[in-house]
């Protein structure tokens, strides 16, 4: 593991912006789960409740030109990246106004305008494609960076290895961001990963690797800004291992019987969201009213998006013949 030195500290505005993204993720997640429980949404749902800090901090350092490739558990990454919520909701409801016309659904949300380029349901597969986007940026001569999000379990699949090796060799402007929540479905980190810190694997690719507290916006900011600067300056990729926890298990409906009640409770007790909120106010970086207003605005946005999404019509079955190729397939 490399050391993080001289990393810049986030400004107060940035911290509030990170909080804004976090609360937007959390409120949206809460609304999705409520809507599923009400039977108004049917879909496999992989909540990232508890992991908000990671993409929120990273996204505070990105623009719409910067790209992300994410995974089934990636709605938080997209919301952090400021993907608009109306087409997001229409998509998870399988409607025609969805980002993908309802054809992709929650595991394949895509929104190039905000840089959400690929969402994959296959473990590890965000990484090889992120490399290609970074290669394109390099060829274009831009300073764009691409982020490949993935989980701790994904660090054991072949695509991880091939991707890090290639990115390092080609000095690609890419960040490999592992959201290490300690579990791969029902399997504990240590029962599927042969090394204590995934970041140690970076050395095998001549690449810097850091393990950070993924629930600490300051630590995340230091690591993220260092890695992003490195990428923008043409110095190549970084592996960031961000330690976190998923509060709601693998998939909506998960019974959690593969973990102890205690460890779950302990993790939830350290929920980064209220902690960060309290600290913002405590340190005078934001006022109670300001954050309440921010939250209310977001709740309104989420409520509007939900209504929009659920009111949008279903696509016509002709859509099965469209977008398979550029040219529509004859009926």
């Amino acid at each position, binding site marked *: 593991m490399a050391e993080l030195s001289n990393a810049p500290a986030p400004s107060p505005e940035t911290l509030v912006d990170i909080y804004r993204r976090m609360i937007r993720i959390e409120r949206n997640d809460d609304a999705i789960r409520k809507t599923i429980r009400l039977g108004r949404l*049917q*879909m*496999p749902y992989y909540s990232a409740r508890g992991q908000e800090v990671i993409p929120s901090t990273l996204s505070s350092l990105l623009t719409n030109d910067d790209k992300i490739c994410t995974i089934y558990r990636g709605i938080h990454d997209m919301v952090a990246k400021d993907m608009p919520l109306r087409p997001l909701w229409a998509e998870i409801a*399988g*409607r025609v106004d969805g980002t*993908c*016309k*309802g*054809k*992709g*659904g*929650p*595991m*394949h949300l895509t929104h190039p305008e905000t840089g959400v380029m690929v969402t*994959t*349901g*296959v*473990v*590890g597969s965000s990484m090889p494609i992120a490399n290609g986007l970074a290669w394109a940026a390099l060829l274009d001569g831009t300073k764009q960076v691409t982020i490949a999000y993935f989980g701790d*379990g*994904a660090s*054991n*699949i*072949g*695509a991880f290895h091939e991707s890090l090796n290639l990115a390092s060799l080609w000095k690609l402007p890419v960040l490999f961001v592992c959201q290490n929540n300690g579990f*791969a*479905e*029902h*399997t*504990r980190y240590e*029962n*599927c*990963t042969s090394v204590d810190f995934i970041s140690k694997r970076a050395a095998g690719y001549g690449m810097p690797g850091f393990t950070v507290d993924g629930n600490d916006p300051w630590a995340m900011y230091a690591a993220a800004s260092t890695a992003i600067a490195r990428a923008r300056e043409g110095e190549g990729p970084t592996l960031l291992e961000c330690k976190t926890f998923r509060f709601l298990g*693998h998939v909506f409906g998960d*019974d959690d*019987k*593969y973990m102890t009640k205690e460890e779950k409770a302990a993790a939830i007790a350290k929920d980064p969201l209220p902690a960060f909120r309290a600290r913002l106010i405590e340190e005078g970086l934001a006022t109670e009213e300001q954050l309440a207003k921010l939250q209310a605005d977001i709740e309104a946005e989420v409520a509007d998006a939900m209504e929009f999404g659920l009111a949008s019509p*279903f*696509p016509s*079955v002709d*859509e*099965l*013949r469209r977008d*398979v190729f550029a040219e529509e*397939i004859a009926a």
Partner: protein
Amino acid sequence: MTATVKMNSLQAVNAALTEAMEQDPKVLVLGEDVGDREGGGVTGATAGLSTRFGDQRVRTTPISEQAIIGAAIGAALGGYKPVAEIMLMNFTTVAMDMIFNHAAKLRFMSGGQSQVPITIRTLTGAGWQTAGQHADHLEGWFAHTAGIKVVAPSNPADYKGLLLSCIQDPDPCIFIESAGSLFTPAEVPINQGPIPIGKARIVQEGTDVTLVSWSSQAVRCQMALPALTEAGISVELIDLRTVSPWDKQTVLESAAKTGRVVIAHEAMRSFGPGAEIAATVNEELFGQLKAPVRRLGAPYSPVPFSKPLENAFLVSPDKVVATVKALMG
């Protein structure tokens, strides 16, 4: 009458694994989350096995499908009979080199010295809105691979009996667990033993049309039967159960009798496994058929998420009914 017990196909899989491990200490189970420490597998198919047979014979693996199939092949070369789980059929693609270039070929390439008696259990099937990367039916690919048997049951008894056979088989088998056939309980003989690979089951005898199907599609074909009976059409429904090697004799005999054949599968129609059966029927019964052989399968499209699209993507019982009726003219 044999005593039976009601169970769904996942429970039948669990029963088969338990029995096979009980009877033969060489049987192993490996895959993601398969152990009881991990809650006994995401679907519960392997629940109880590690507690009963120990975590050396039932091993939870990392998310490393190449390593999973590789470990299964190697253990098989070392005299074991591993049952490897690839959580979903779409993820066989990350292990395809191990399956296609190695498991299926080692016996031949070694001139018969190596044998690879592994079973690959894998789940798939549309209908649950899991969208484009979690529901493909790829039995056509495996059937187009020399050296691997392709088994695709449709009901609890067949799940149990065929899985037992796959595990005992001296060659690699891919065992397809399809969503549309997993959760409906049915009576299974308590002493349900191995059911031979490569033998179809005639679900219903009939004289007008031969309907050939397997896996979840056989369930949807069965759902089409009442409407067809009502319409006065006598359908012979054949559940192929094994896609490769397929039971040519049963299909041809039925087709010779009825003169009309419809083949239905959940896999994509285009270049799908139904084409082999259609081509063979046409070739063997040239001039003897009363109507063209019809094939039903998924449209040329990835699996869609949106419910109405997913419904249209699947070959519904209604489509089966309409096709059979049209064929009768």
